[in-house]
């Protein structure tokens, strides 16, 4: 009995000692050491395909959300009378006013699907231009036109972008947009926007990404950036130099920028961007026997030449400051009554006439924005 008990006690004693030694949490955990050169030679266990990335090194940050405020200096608006003006006609513009505008710009770009093999983003925008102007006395059509613009110009859009990599080096981009542009305001008794006046545009690009610092592509675009419907080829060229200090962000003819990286949190871009659209003029007051229409569209387009400074404030919040000049490319007006209120294609070579042939002189501008970004 004593021997048996001793054996049992010994077994229990050894067992408990072992339990203490091995099941207690080790508070001085020391990681197993390793020779890093062993990671040179590996083999796959899992299987994945490699796809080209939608970005290259050091591109300016992608904005998920952007809230900005846009202010311009004065420009001189010279207007013709109501008429029928071909694009190349010499036009008498006897009436003029100074005008400037300001307003908020709100944009969102949300990734619905964002994976290596497919990226789908959906976005929207809301831009307002509130006009301030000195109207002339006894200026007839000119003043009526300014009245149409006095509530400001609003642009709303919904857009979607698809990026599809075709293997490791090639890709496709498809972008579609529906816009509602016009002199409408919300909350007033005025008309607009009307879904019948929605403008549709899109761009398709096939491109290559040969390495991490270059991405280029060729494509076709249906666009209203020049103020009216147009079909144009596009050329994309995003590049970062080997020293990682400078690069380009080009989507010609819509925009072209030279980029300078001060550091990972401060960048400067210099270049231009073409902005524009066709704005419906609602509730027009042109009521006379010769000219009575509710189908006017302002073909507005501007080239914004600018210096753009972007800086990280904290985390993913960046601020943007733009300063430059707006070169107004188009401020003409079409009457769509003659085409049964349907938009039409004039392009660069059409000679359909404008109802108003106007010009707006260059004006300085400043834009401040707060952005939620991803790099």
């Amino acid at each position: 009995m004593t021997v048996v008990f001793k054996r049992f006690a010994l077994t229990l004693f050894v067992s408990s000692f072992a339990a203490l030694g091995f099941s207690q949490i080790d508070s001085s955990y020391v990681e197993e050491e390793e020779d890093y050169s062993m990671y040179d030679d590996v083999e796959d266990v899992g299987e994945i395909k490699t796809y080209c990335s939608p970005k290259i090194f050091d591109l300016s940050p992608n904005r998920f959300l952007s809230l900005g405020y846009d202010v311009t200096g004065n420009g001189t608006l010279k207007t013709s009378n109501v008429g029928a003006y071909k694009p190349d006609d010499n036009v008498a513009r006897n009436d003029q006013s100074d005008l400037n505008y300001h307003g908020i710009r709100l944009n969102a770009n949300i990734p619905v699907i964002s994976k290596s093999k497919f990226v789908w983003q959906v976005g929207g925008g809301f831009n307002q231009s509130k006009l301030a102007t000195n109207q002339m006395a006894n200026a007839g059509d000119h003043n009526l036109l300014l009245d149409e613009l006095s509530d400001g110009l609003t642009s709303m859009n919904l857009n979607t972008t698809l990026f599809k990599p075709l293997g490791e080096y090639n890709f496709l981009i498809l972008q579609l947009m529906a816009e509602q542009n016009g002199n409408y305001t919300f909350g007033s008794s005025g008309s607009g926007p009307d879904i019948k006046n929605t403008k549709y545009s899109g761009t398709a690009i096939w491109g290559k990404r040969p390495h991490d610092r270059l991405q280029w592509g060729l494509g076709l675009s249906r666009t209203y950036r020049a103020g009216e419907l147009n079909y144009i080829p596009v050329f994309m060229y995003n590049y970062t130099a080997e020293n990682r200090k400078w690069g380009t962000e080009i989507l010609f003819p819509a925009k072209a920028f030279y980029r300078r990286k001060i550091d990972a949190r401060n960048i400067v871009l210099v270049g231009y961007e073409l902005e524009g659209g066709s704005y419906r003029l609602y509730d027009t007051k042109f009521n006379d026997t010769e000219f009575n229409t509710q189908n006017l569209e302002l073909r507005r387009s501007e080239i914004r030449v600018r210096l753009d400074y972007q800086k990280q404030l904290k985390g993913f919040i960046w601020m943007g400051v733009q300063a430059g000049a707006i070169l107004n490319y188009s401020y003409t007006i079409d009457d769509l009554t003659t085409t049964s209120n349907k938009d039409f294609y004039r392009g660069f070579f059409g000679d359909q006439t404008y109802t108003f042939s106007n010009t707006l002189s260059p004006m300085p501008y400043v834009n401040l924005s707060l952005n939620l970004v991803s790099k």
Partner: protein
Amino acid sequence: MKKIITLIGTLALLFTISSFTSNPASVQDGGDDILGLWEPSNGKARVKIEKIGSKYYGKIVWLREPLDPATQKPKVDKNNEDEKMRNVPLRGYRMLKDFVYDAESKEWSGGTIYDPESGSLYSCVVTMENDVLDIRGYVGVKALGRTDTWKRIKIKKKN
């Protein structure tokens, strides 16, 4: 009596052995399945995922281009927000941090992924299927993010 005592002793020994060999609870619910060597889809680095305490961390153990072309020296964390941390070498850098395994949703969450190229730190959630990881880095909410796939790799056995 002798047989009973022997039986109790044997059971005690067996219990001890099982305590020694048993893994913490998280292995039983799949958390440790993520441990090992992984390669992102761009093939530029290899990351070893390990466990410290109750959380999971991923350390860069190999770089396809280990030298900075500008300096010809081993790459460092030159884009770090904190100037004082810009000389930390990238090889050995913990780019995945603080992941906790949720057995119910079968995902590793609550962690972060660091992108040395931009010096940005993203919130992150990881899921796994068939030796492939879906690593989703995001800003604030999961909707504002991007998913990359990583494949499991292993060191070739030397003959």
